[in-house]
Each structure stands twice: as structure tokens, then as C-alpha cells.
């Protein structure tokens, strides 16, 4: 017979072309992370979620540069003004450079209140990389360059609030604050869960029982009332930075049990495995065994868990700040911005006050679908043949 025949009498299947075999070989030798990434890439919705979150993060990180002004800058000519849409044409014709119409102030003949009225005769063109309010990027790099601006005045993409402050600017900064509280909260919860869950899972026995009890209690008390109780204890004289960190602390403090439970379950399951015994026999320390042998096999699950717990942090922060027990003005966060939208009057008179709510919804949705996609990708049982 031909040289194709191997010693065992098994044929190299000739109908299978080489590229296919290569593909299979690549699949079998790929690392866990490569597998997860390949499967995740197929998940189109989850990819969109990831992109949305990256965009939001960039908005938060570069808020100073993207925003046309500072969060406290007041535009007295445009109080409680509606969002302004950049235009390319009007009754005078087309313009390559986007513009908005100017504003005139009039008095309402009945209430005698000042009213901002669009003046279709004037055009204010939008310029990019303009000089405006001074700021320090990340508190370090002084600059006054803004992504965009008008020749005169401020372009209010999302409108303004009751004090004439630009809602787009405020939303950008709020995005940064709210997301970062989420990140810090999740990280705190994670570190606590790792330590506590690790101890419980590895030590077992009495320690395990005690931690189980604590977990149980944190699980039965309704979460947001509990957060509120802790937040109510923040001294009034605390600075906003202090409140900010205190909030991440309480999110972490109350968020760890779910995570710890999973870590604990996993550790208990793996403790009897051969490779752990082997490591123990060779004299590795407990800490080393946990970090070197036990956790890596669990990393993908941990990441999924972290991603999934983000929405709860974000919604909790929003809820707390919304009722005035969380961050306080002049800080901005999604919850604080939504304080202005607490009543029906706001919906009727200034529906744009709800724009930050869209950010909350989109962020939570994005985290949820991203988490679901990652979970599917990380689940080894979903591997299909070939």
C-alpha cells in the first residue's frame, strides 16, 4: 500500500484537507484564554456590549477634553434650555461646517419671566479643538483645549439644567464617577471575597461555618436599605472624596458574599483534586496553593462574576445618590443628575433631564449582555466538537 498507511493500520484520512487539520490542531492546542476569546468573538451582542462600555469609559476618562466647559460653568443666557442639535442647513442654505442658531432673550408677556428664544437669523458655527475653560487632565496636565466649541457661547448637546449648567458636560463627568465607583466597589468586593472565601474554602471547619453565617445575614437583609443605613452614618462634614471612597467601601463590604460563596464552592470542590494533593505533598504553602493552583482554574468564572455584579453596583449608587444618601452636589454622578428628574414637572418641562437615565440603562444593559456573553464563552461545557 502507499506511504499513507501508518504502523497501526490507520489511514491518514485523505479526504480531509490540510487546512482543516491545521485548524483542528490549533483548536486542540489552544490555551484556555484563546478558546474563550474565540467563542466570545462569535457573540455579536456581547461584543457590542463591550464596545459600548469602552466608549463610556473613554467618555469618562477624557471628560475634561470632550466636554465644552466645566461642570459648574453656568450659561445664564440658556437656563433650562433644550438640547441643541447641530445643523448643516437652514432656510439660508447649506453649510459644510455644522452650526446652531443663536439665542435671544425675551420676556414672557404674561409671567414676565425671561425666556430663551432661538434666533434663526444668526448662525453660530462649531469649531473643533478650541480653547476654552482651563482644566487639569486627571489632575495633572494643565490644558484648555476642548474637543469642540462654538465661536461664541457654549453648545449644549443635552440641554441645560435649572442653573444653566451644560448637561452634556455633567453627564460626561457623571459617567466617569459612576463607572469608577462601580469598578472600585467591585474590586473591593473581589478582594474581600478572595480573602474571606479563600480562607473559608481552604480552612473549612469552624472558620467556614462562621463565614457562612455572615454571608447568610448579609443575604437576608434587603440590600439598598442596608446601603442607606450605612450611608446615613457618613458625617455631614465629610468631603466628597471621603464620601466617594466610603461608598465604594460599603459596596465592597456588602457585595462580597455572593462572590465569596462561589469561590468557596469552587475551592471546596477542588481541594481534593490530585494536583492540589501533589502540591501539598511537595510542601507548598497554603497561600501558594490557592494562588498558584486553585485560582487560575477559576479565573474565567471570577471575571464573569465580576462583570455581572457591576449592574448592581451602578444601580445601587444611582439609587443612593438619587435619594440624597450617597454622593452630594457639587459632585456629579448619574444618581445626582437624576435628582433633578424626581417629579412629573421635570418630565413635562425638561424631558432632557432624563438623558442620564439612558446612560444608566445602557450601561447596565451593556454589562449584562457582556457578562452573559463571557459566561457562555467561558463555560467549558458549551464546547462543540470540531
Amino acid at each position, binding site marked *: 500500500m502507499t506511504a499513507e498507511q501508518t504502523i497501526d493500520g490507520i489511514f491518514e484520512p485523505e479526504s480531509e484537507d490540510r487546512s482543516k487539520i491545521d485548524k483542528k490542531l490549533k483548536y486542540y492546542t489552544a490555551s484556555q484564554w484563546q478558546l474563550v476569546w474565540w467563542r466570545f468573538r462569535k457573540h455579536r451582542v456581547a461584543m457590542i456590549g463591550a464596545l459600548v462600555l469602552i466608549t463610556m469609559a473613554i467618555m469618562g476618562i477624557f471628560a475634561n477634553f470632550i466636554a465644552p466647559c466645566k461642570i459648574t460653568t453656568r450659561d445664564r443666557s440658556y437656563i433650562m434650555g433644550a438640547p441643541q442639535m447641530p445643523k448643516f442647513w437652514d432656510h439660508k442654505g447649506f453649510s459644510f461646517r455644522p452650526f446652531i442658531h443663536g439665542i435671544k432673550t425675551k420676556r414672557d408677556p404674561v409671567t414676565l419671566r425671561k425666556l430663551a428664544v432661538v434666533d434663526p437669523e444668526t448662525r453660530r458655527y462649531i469649531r473643533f479643538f478650541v480653547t476654552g475653560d482651563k482644566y487639569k487632565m486627571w489632575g495633572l496636565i494643565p490644558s484648555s483645549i476642548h474637543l469642540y466649541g462654538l465661536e461664541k457661547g457654549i453648545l449644549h448637546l443635552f440641554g441645560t439644567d435649572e442653573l444653566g449648567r451644560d448637561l452634556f458636560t455633567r453627564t460626561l463627568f457623571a459617567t466617569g464617577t459612576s463607572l469608577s465607583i462601580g469598578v472600585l466597589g467591585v474590586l473591593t468586593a473581589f478582594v474581600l471575597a478572595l480573602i474571606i472565601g479563600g480562607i473559608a474554602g481552604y480552612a473549612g471547619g469552624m472558620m467556614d461555618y462562621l463565614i457562612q453565617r455572615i454571608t447568610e445575614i448579609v443575604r437576608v437583609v*434587603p440590600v439598598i*436599605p442596608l446601603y*442607606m*443605613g450605612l450611608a446615613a452614618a457618613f458625617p455631614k462634614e465629610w468631603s466628597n472624596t471621603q464620601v466617594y471612597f466610603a461608598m465604594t467601601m460599603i459596596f465592597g463590604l456588602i457585595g462580597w458574599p455572593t462572590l465569596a460563596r462561589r469561590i468557596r464552592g469552587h475551592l471546596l470542590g477542588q481541594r481534593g483534586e490530585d494536583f492540589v494533593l501533589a502540591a501539598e505533598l511537595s510542601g507548598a504553602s497554603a497561600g501558594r496553593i490557592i494562588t498558584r493552583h486553585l485560582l487560575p482554574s477559576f479565573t474565567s468564572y471570577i471575571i464573569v462574576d465580576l462583570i455581572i455584579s457591576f449592574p448592581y453596583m451602578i444601580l445601587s449608587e444611582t439609587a443612593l445618590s438619587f435619594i440624597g444618601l450617597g454622593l452630594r452636589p457639587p459632585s456629579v454622578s448619574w444618581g445626582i443628575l437624576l435628582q433633578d428628574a424626581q417629579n412629573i414637572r421635570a418630565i413635562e418641562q425638561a424631558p432632557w433631564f*432624563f438623558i442620564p437615565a439612558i446612560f444608566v*440603562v445602557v450601561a447596565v444593559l451593556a454589562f449584562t449582555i457582556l457578562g452573559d456573553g463571557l459566561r457562555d464563552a467561558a463555560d467549558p461545557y458549551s464546547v462543540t466538537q470540531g
Partner: protein
Amino acid sequence: MLRFLVHRIFGLLVTMFFVSIMVFIIMELPPGDYADRYAFRKFSGTGVNVTQGDIDNIRHGFGLDRPAHIRYAQWMTGILTRFDFGESFAYETSVNHVIGQRLWMTLAILYTTLILTYVLSIPIAIYAAVNRHSSVDYSLTVVSYLGLALPNFLLALVMLYVSVTVFDTSVGGLFSPEYEKAPWSLVKLGDMLQHLIIPAVVLAWSATALQLQTVRATMLDELNKLSVTAARARGIPEWKVLMKYPARLAVNPVVSTIGFDVNRIFSELPIVALVLGLPELGELLIQSYLDLDMYVAGAILMMLTFFIVIMNFVSDVALAALDPRIKLSGV
């Protein structure tokens, strides 16, 4: 069965004990104490110069100078023996009086929400799982994602707006003005139920979203079980197969998460109640946190948690009754 019950009740008591300690700690956390706030409130603006001695007198009068564990014991004894949760600082009357009817309102809202959640989620999720890839199934996925993402206070605002503009009814509160002070009657009950719909819908929204997903996932799981194929192989009519086998088991995770749902509802209740102006415990809780009226807050926190623990217990017992695989012999 008896051992099982005793075991669970014991566990319940232990949990409540630890919870009471935690609640007490929360009550003690805010800086300053009742005496400071009492003195400030009583004498501020009156021109009277309050000395540290006066405050100490007040403190002694309230027994606040005793060590924490004694005060904890007194607080607990009051609750356990006389069902007395102490004094409200902001209302200058007993906590029980402040809470009053609000407790029943809270429970009315809770149970309306729970019933609404299960009545909606179970049948829809079962239908969606049986008709996988149907339009109902896809809309279920979308709705349940939205249910998790939409902050409930926002939903409450939207509902308020819709009911005011479209239906021209005010949904704030639990009663129409004419029944507010009226004695209980069937008409008043009907009026209350009408007002309960919106809070129940708002609160049931995310609980339903979660349950839709769980029931659908379990149902899909169960539909693929061999026992279902085996039942079909016996020639049993399809709807009977579905109801008796997969649907019956798809309800189990719902039963086992009743406590979780109650927790979730209570967690969202305060803010929803604040927006909708509902006279119940959640709204009072926020108010008392803002006023640092910690005895009221503590009492509410204890009550809410107590109901969650009780519902956990109910769910454990119901699950054991539903699933013969769960042994009833304790542990």
C-alpha cells in the same frame, strides 16, 4: 418532618439574632447620639444655652449613658416582650405609633407584587420555553434584559406620568383623598387595590424579569429530560405531559427564590415609595435615615428582614413538600 421544621426554625432564630446585632450597629453608627439631637432640636432657636451638663442629663434620662451591650439587651427585651421598638426622635412618640398602619400597607404592596410577579412570569416563561424561537420567546429575552436595566424609580416616574397625562388619575399615595381618613370599608379596599396596581407593576417589573429567565431556563432544561420523552412514549397527551412533568419542575426554582424576591422587592420599595408617595415603611425608612431617627430606621430594617427570613422559611418548607428528593429529616 418535625425535625426538619425544628431545625429550620432554630436556624431562623439564629439568623435573626445576628441580624438584630447588625441592625443595632447600624443604629449606633451615625455620629452623635439621640441625646445630642434631642437637645439640639428642643433648644435650638429658643435662645437657651445648652451646656454639656444638660445633654448629659438628657442622656442619663434616656439611659443612653449605659454601655452598648446593655442598651442592646434593653432594646431587644422591649421588642421581644412588649413588641416595643423604642421612641421615635423625629415624631416624639413611640416607634410603634409611627409605624402603625404602614406595616400593613407594606405587606399589602409586597403580596400584590409577589402575586403579580408569579402570575405573569410562570405562564409566560413556560409558554416561551415550549415555543422556543417564537416571537414571545424573543420578546421575553428583550423584556427581561430591560427589566434588569431600567432603574425602578425611573419606571415609577414614567408610570406616574402616563397615568396623569393619559388616564388623568393621580396615582400618588394609596388612597384617593376622599378615602384617606375614612374608616375601612369594601369601597375603601377597592380604592386601595386600584392604587396598589402601579406600585405593584413597578416593583414586579424586575422580579418578573428575573423569574422569566429562571423559569424559562429551567423549563428548557426539563423539556430535554428523558422522563419527558418517556412520558410522551407512554402516549400521554402533549399538554398533560407538559404540565405534569417539565412545568411542575420549572416552578421549583420560583418557590426556592421567594425569599430572594421578597428581598429584592423590599430593597427597591423605599425609592419607589418615595417617588409614588406611598405611606408605607420604605418611604418612612428613607425619611428616618435622613433625619437620623435611628430607632424608627432600626425597627423598619428589623421588620423587613424578619419578613424576608420568614419567607425564606416558607420557601424551604414548600420546596421540601414539592420535591420528594429533599429529605425532611433535618440538616
